[in-house]
């Protein structure tokens, strides 16, 4: 049965509101951009199928519902044999070939190299730190929003984020930002 126009609008609003955070979360969980993209699609397909239920929830409830689905899908993907080693190999390969947008070929190459090093260091983080880091940076979520999505206190999120940053700074011999 084709969707009602209102359903499509409700879904699009939900999708636009949460897609970036969900993708960042899944990227942190599976460390494979392609797989993360597939899981984003599967997550929102389930949102679509349960739209009346999800759409009627308040925003925090929507976020919790969606992230529960995303977490279960990430777990299923491990079980399905998407091994972390393969994912990390793909990510490492992509990191070395990904273009960055800075002026000047020398600066661009230098930054790309440093980003690839950072990427490797992020992959070496404990998963709980990597997920939070990805949600905060690629997802643009606050500690409170991350906490709501993951069912963790915001203070715990801030602590893990701080741990992650410290580990990365040490691994790359970088100075911490302000």
């Amino acid at each position: 049965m084709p969707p009602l126009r209102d359903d499509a609008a409700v879904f699009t609003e939900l999708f636009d509101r949460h897609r970036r955070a969900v993708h960042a979360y899944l990227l942190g969980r599976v460390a494979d951009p392609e797989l993360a993209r597939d899981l984003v699609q599967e997550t929102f397909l389930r949102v679509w199928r349960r739209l009346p239920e999800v759409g009627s929830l308040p925003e925090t409830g929507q976020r919790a519902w969606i992230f529960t689905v995303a977490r279960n899908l990430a777990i299923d993907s491990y079980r399905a044999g998407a091994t972390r080693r393969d994912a990390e190999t793909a990510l490492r390969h992509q990191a070395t070939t990904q273009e960055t947008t800075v002026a000047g070929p020398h600066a661009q190459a230098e930054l790309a190299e440093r980003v690839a090093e950072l990427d490797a260091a992020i992959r070496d983080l404990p998963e709980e730190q990597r997920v939070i880091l990805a949600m905060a940076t690629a997802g643009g979520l606050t500690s409170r929003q991350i906490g709501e999505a993951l069912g963790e206190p915001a203070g715990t999120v801030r602590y893990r984020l701080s741990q992650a940053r410290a580990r990365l700074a040490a691994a790359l011999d970088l100075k911490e930002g302000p």
Partner: protein
Amino acid sequence: MSSPAPPDLDRLLAAWAEARRLPDADAERIRLAILPPVAPLEASWWTELNGKLSAVVTRATATPVPALAALVPAN
């Protein structure tokens, strides 16, 4: 000539996030893959609408002016 200062963690994280973020075009492809296309209105709906419009036009042109005036509520 002085060498540029090494980028700090925030700058590198911003570059990493930018490279890893789901591009808008990919997001739109995902959205469209999930949403089934909205079906156009069926031909019978248009036929019914045309019939109703024709009836209104016919009644308006065939009804005497005094009768039409009587249909309009007085202010």
